[in-house]
């Protein structure tokens, strides 16, 4: 029990550091691809610390609650992942936080915030089925939703190659990368001002950034357990997926919400059916 609490605390402390460092690499690599020099690697930490110490400007009190709930659920899901809890429970806790994040944006009157929140809902609708399908496919191979049991199967990647591609897609949609950067106008695009983040400002924006880092680490960890025989190789696979996502972000243009839904649903249903059929026929 004490050991598990220790692992929980260590994961909760380490995850934002890793997530912030990775998003720093993201910005540097994006600058490199665009032929720029780019900000320092530690830039996301400077941004978040600065935001934490800015003046608090509130539209309503519910925003504060929803920003904290989003951070709390992200922390809980990463911590539960570290102590190898139930995969389905982790997914549901993660989506509860996102619902608060969206509700907080919907609670303001700004039309930009409203449209951003609607689009974020659509993005959730696009990737939540993929995550659930992933859990189902993992259950089909291992016979359990428990992470400790799942991780006894060393090389899940060989059984679930298509689900791995789906997880890569989830990462792209979750990080709001092109072609799915619909809800928050990443990279100085300002057609929705800042979309869902428009009315979160100062310290609350910082909380949301930290929660985003947790979720980045969570999705990367889900990719990493596909090679749980040697977690170093698993982490390398996850990092490779992350870098491919950054390259895709830089070489694609934004698409519409309708296209995203049609694409992600058809791909996820097709890949899941093919992959589960593959598992059955191999037995």
């Amino acid at each position: 029990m004490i050991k598990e609490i220790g692992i929980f605390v260590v994961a909760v402390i380490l995850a934002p550091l890793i997530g912030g460092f990775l998003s720093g690499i993201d910005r540097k690599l994006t600058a490199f691809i665009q032929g720029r020099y780019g900000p320092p690697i530690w830039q996301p930490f400077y941004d978040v610390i600065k935001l934490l110490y800015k003046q608090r400007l509130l539209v309503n009190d519910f925003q504060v609650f929803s920003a904290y709930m989003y951070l709390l659920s992200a922390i809980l899901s990463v911590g539960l992942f570290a102590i190898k809890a139930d995969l389905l429970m982790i997914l549901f806790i993660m989506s509860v936080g996102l619902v608060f994040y969206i509700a907080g944006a919907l609670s303001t009157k700004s039309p930009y915030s409203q449209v951003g929140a609607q689009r974020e809902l659509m993005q959730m609708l696009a990737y939540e089925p993929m995550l659930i399908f992933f859990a189902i496919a993992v259950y089909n191979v291992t016979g359990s939703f428990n992470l400790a049991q799942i991780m006894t199967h060393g090389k899940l990647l060989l059984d679930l190659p298509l689900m791995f591609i789906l997880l890569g897609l989830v990462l792209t949609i979750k990080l709001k990368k092109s072609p799915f950067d619909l809800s928050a106008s990443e990279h100085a695009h300002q057609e929705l001002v800042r979309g869902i983040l428009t009315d979160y400002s100062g310290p609350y924006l910082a909380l949301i950034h930290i929660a985003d880092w947790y979720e980045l680490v969570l999705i990367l960890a889900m990719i990493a357990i596909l090679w749980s025989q040697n977690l170093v190789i698993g982490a390398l696979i996850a990092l490779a997926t992350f870098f491919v996502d950054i390259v895709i972000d830089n070489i694609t243009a934004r698409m519409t919400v309708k296209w995203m839904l049609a694409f992600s649903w058809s791909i996820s249903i097709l890949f899941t059916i093919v992959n589960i059929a593959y598992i059955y026929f191999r037995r």
Partner: protein
Amino acid sequence: MGLKEFVEKSFKKSPWVLHYNCSSCNGCDIEILACMTPLYDMERFGMVNVGNPKHADILVVTGTVNHKNKEVLKNIYDQMPEPKVVVAVGVCAATGGIFREAYNVLGGIDKVIPVDVYVPGCPAKPEAIIDGLYKAAEILKEKYEKMGKAEEVLK
């Protein structure tokens, strides 16, 4: 390095820039956009171009103020959270420039909001603008330090 020093350094290293075109002729605006291109790349100083006053630290204003947009400028300035810095880019924003005597022009933007850095030029060069923004980031750090001292006095 303690937490206090790191916070102060963060304010200097991460100024987010909001650009408002206050009836400018677009000359200075093009030069501001040039600062974001690979040639000048203002992101290497951590400067990000944001479109939301609630996220911004530095307000960059180009052009003169007239009776129509003085309320807009004041409104944008009021929406920014403290600490905040204003940079006036180009002679129009600084003094009114060649439009100074026009019947609808109030003059430089310092007639409406307090200005911290003036960047001269018609249009201002991208090098001068980045220089001004860097200066503004240093003023932002100073303002944060002053905010902390004011809070200590109020306690």
